[in-house]
């Protein structure tokens, strides 16, 4: 018999700026549909190609439903079902003996934003591991480099409201593929364009977004700071500065002018590969077609100079007084409008004095080289580092260590979960409670639990309650409900929370933070920058304290910051791996590789769904026609991409969409799905950028070769998908 259909409200759990509002439809206890809410002011009723089949994703037969223990060799993927009691007892026994022998710092958590809600997300395990005394894991996989660059310049500003973009007349989409990774912003851009706005995309690759722009400016990877400094120089030397705004609301103009004078347009052209006339036109149009707005993507940070590139770009809006206008200024991250009580979430007061901090971008090195004490156990949740983190082969080598006890809580047997000793089943969004924030717009949304979890899967909050009980922790923190945690975690006293209560968030499908009206909002029309001086700091005062990582990205821990020198003025440094910095390396590996997010996957999530694999196709390697010709590569050829760190294989696509010297291969494919059993992060370095320890995924040199014919034969036999992808994506 057909039961009644029930509608339950929720919100997308993914690490994406769009934060779509969900309408769950449940019948007979089964989730039969997940749709967007047409009433949501930003997401307007549609989801995306990644999430359209989210209901069936919950019922994917590959879900991990029960705790499991490894039975085969490490990485073999062979497990047997055990009970939760057995799993917890084994974890307790292993961790207790590790702590007895090596101390608690021999244990490290490894996590990120597989879920991004207030209670199930980034910080869900922080209090537990702080209480345990584990090594503090610093998590700077995404946006921290850009955010430090932003904070040193304009402070933790909430920035331009994306809904205000309809008022903009000049929209610069810099280092962002809006249509693949922020697609609900596009209708606002399109509306502005109908009102006369020009849309400019700055990107080395002709992405979907670049293809739809009024003007695509290809730029050599890692040279964005030179372009921004060059624009500053042109704006100053041609008298296009809003001098009144600069005099009242900025700091360090004279010094900035001197620094920018080092970047005359000819020099900038030779660094960036952009013709002189284009640089001049860009600077002049940007300065004179107000309101002008820069939407800066996270990709800006993924090279040596990522943080300072963000600094340079962040100087532009104040220089031309763009902030005076509705829809003028800078749009990066809206997260400051979602105030959190970090010390209640992370309990940094539980961190023992002298606890070390290790950055997870160096995960391979951590597992292989950390000493005093070495890492003897790692617990992985909300993350798939084998695909997502740099230097894949080194991470796998670390995970293969026989003496490393690995616990993984997951939805699926990912490339990382394969290396678990104990696997624990995690819940998907319709099966759990969370309060969702957004880093792209200003709306909260409460995600109500819609269906029971399958098998014995538990939400992350429950996982850590169970672990705390297992380890004998008896503080009241471990006995709270999810709602009680939300109540404790949000800073309800912040002005951004005016009129917002937990009851209201549970009652209404989405609630706008108190940030002002989209059609009149000008957050920095009169300065009011949340910086030490209250001004836009061309010359940063906070730089004097040296480099640092925000506490939420390191379990709430303020201590043990590196404090290395930070240039107080925006600066340009050539990428680590480039002709300028490493000529010998560039001789052997002449091609720069970019690994943008795949349109059909969300990082590595959904890359295990047949439908998404079919849509995305298998791994492709896009080469410029000149680079392809000199290597004898034709579209459809199986190729190997390699450097000293590793290699992966893919199917060549020869296209002018990428610049000469730049290879593009999308991120997200699971290594276990490929012939080489490796994916694009096989070649990436674990060096970090100059601010915020951002990863340097766009700062890697490689060479590309056609795979030998005997191997190619195998490729053709094993992958009909490869042929399809070439047809589908050229």
């Amino acid at each position, binding site marked *: 018999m057909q039961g009644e259909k029930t509608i339950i409200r929720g919100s997308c759990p993914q690490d994406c700026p769009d934060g779509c509002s969900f309408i769950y439809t449940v019948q007979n206890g089964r989730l039969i549909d997940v749709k967007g809410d047409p009433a949501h002011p930003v997401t*307007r*009723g*549609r*989801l*995306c*190609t990644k999430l*359209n089949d989210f209901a069936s994703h919950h019922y994917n037969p590959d879900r991990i439903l029960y705790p499991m223990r490894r039975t085969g060799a490490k990485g073999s993927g062979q497990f047997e079902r055990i009970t939760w009691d057995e799993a917890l007892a084994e974890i307790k026994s292993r961790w207790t003996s590790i702590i007895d022998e090596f101390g608690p710092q021999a244990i490290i958590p490894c996590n990120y934003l597989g879920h991004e809600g207030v209670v199930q997300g980034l910080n869900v395990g922080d209090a537990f591991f702080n209480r345990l005394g584990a090594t503090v894991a610093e998590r700077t996989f995404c946006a921290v480099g850009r955010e430090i660059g932003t904070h040193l310049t304009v402070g933790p500003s909430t920035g331009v409201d994306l809904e205000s973009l309809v008022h903009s007349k000049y929209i610069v989409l810099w280092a962002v593929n809006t*249509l*693949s990774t922020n*697609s*609900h912003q*596009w*209708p606002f851009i*399109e509306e502005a364009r*109908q009102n006369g706005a020009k849309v400019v995309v700055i990107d080395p690759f002709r992405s*979907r977004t670049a*293809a*739809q722009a009024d003007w695509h400016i290809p730029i050599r990877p890692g040279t964005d700071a030179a372009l921004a400094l060059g624009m500053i120089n042109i704006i100053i030397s041609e008298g296009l500065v809003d001098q009144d705004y600069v005099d009242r609301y900025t700091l360090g103009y004279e010094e900035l002018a001197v620094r920018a004078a080092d970047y005359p347009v000819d020099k900038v052209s030779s660094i960036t590969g952009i013709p002189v006339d284009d640089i001049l036109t860009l600077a002049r149009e940007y300065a004179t077609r107000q309101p002008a707005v820069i939407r800066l993507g996270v990709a800006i940070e993924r090279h040596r100079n990522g943080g300072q590139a963000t600094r340079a770009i962040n100087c532009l809006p104040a220089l031309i007084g763009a902030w005076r206008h509705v829809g003028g200024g800078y749009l990066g991250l809206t997260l400051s409008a979602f105030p959190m009580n970090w010390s209640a979430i992370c309990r940094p007061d539980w961190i023992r004095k002298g606890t070390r901090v290790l950055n997870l971008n160096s995960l391979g090195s951590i597992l292989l080289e950390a000493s005093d004490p070495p890492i003897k156990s790692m617990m992985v949740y909300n993350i798939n580092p084998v695909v997502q983190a740099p230097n894949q082969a080194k991470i796998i080598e670390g995970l293969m260590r026989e003496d490393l006890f690995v616990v993984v809580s997951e939805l699926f047997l990912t490339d990382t979960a394969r290396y678990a000793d104990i696997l624990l089943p995690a819940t998907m969004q319709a099966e759990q409670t969370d309060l969702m924030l957004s880093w792209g717009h200003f709306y909260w949304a409460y995600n109500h639990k819609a269906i029971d979890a399958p098998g014995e899967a538990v939400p992350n909050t429950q996982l850590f309650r169970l672990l705390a009980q297992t380890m004998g922790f008896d503080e009241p923190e471990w006995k709270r409900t999810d709602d009680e945690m939300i109540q404790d975690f949000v800073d309800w006293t912040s002005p951004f929370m005016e009129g917002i209560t937990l009851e209201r968030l549970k009652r209404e499908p989405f609630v706008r933070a108190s940030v002002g009206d989209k059609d009149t909002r000008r957050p920095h029309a009169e300065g009011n920058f949340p910086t030490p001086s209250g001004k836009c700091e061309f010359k940063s005062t906070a730089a004097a304290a040296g480099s640092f990582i925000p506490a939420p990205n390191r379990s709430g821990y303020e201590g043990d910051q590196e404090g290395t020198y930070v240039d107080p003025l925006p600066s340009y440094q050539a990428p680590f791996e480039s002709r300028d910095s490493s000529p010998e390396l560039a001789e052997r590996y002449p091609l720069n590789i970019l690994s943008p997010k795949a*349109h*059909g996957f969300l990082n590595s999530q959904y890359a295990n769904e047949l439908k998404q694999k*079919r*849509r*995305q196709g298998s791994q492709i390697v896009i080469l410029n026609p000149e680079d392809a010709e000199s290597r004898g590569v034709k579209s459809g050829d199986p190729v190997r991409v390699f450097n000293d760190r590793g290699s992966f294989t893919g199917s060549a696509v020869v296209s002018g969409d990428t610049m000469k010297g730049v290879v593009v291969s999308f991120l997200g494919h699971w290594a276990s799905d490929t012939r080489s059993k490796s994916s694009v992060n096989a070649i990436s370095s674990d060096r970090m950028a100059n601010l915020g320890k951002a990863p340097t995924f766009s700062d890697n040199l490689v060479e590309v070769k056609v795979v030998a014919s005997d191997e190619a034969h195998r490729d053709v036999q094993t992958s009909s998908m490869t042929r399809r992808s070439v047809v*589908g*994506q050229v």
Partner: protein
Amino acid sequence: MPHIVTENCTDCRFTDCVAVCPVNCFHGDGNRVYIDPVACIDCGACVPLCPVKAIYEDLDIEGERTVWIDLNAELAASLPVVRTKQPALPGAKERMSSLGFAGHEGA
């Protein structure tokens, strides 16, 4: 992986699809609309709104009907964008019922 408008659109052209498209990828002539496969982001928002089920993901189109894949690409490139909902064509209601679909408020 774009979406494709197939035969059922011809002589109906209800255009509920164009109003929901976030990237304005529909182009049209006097008879019907086509999707620009370069602009389409495969969000699928248009699919449930078509009263005659004319829109499919390209990978779901088989046999002779694959002709629509090339036709959409070719004709979208040469026709103007249709941004707002248009009145349905005269006779659309009759065509819809001849295709086996129930009533639609736009007809």
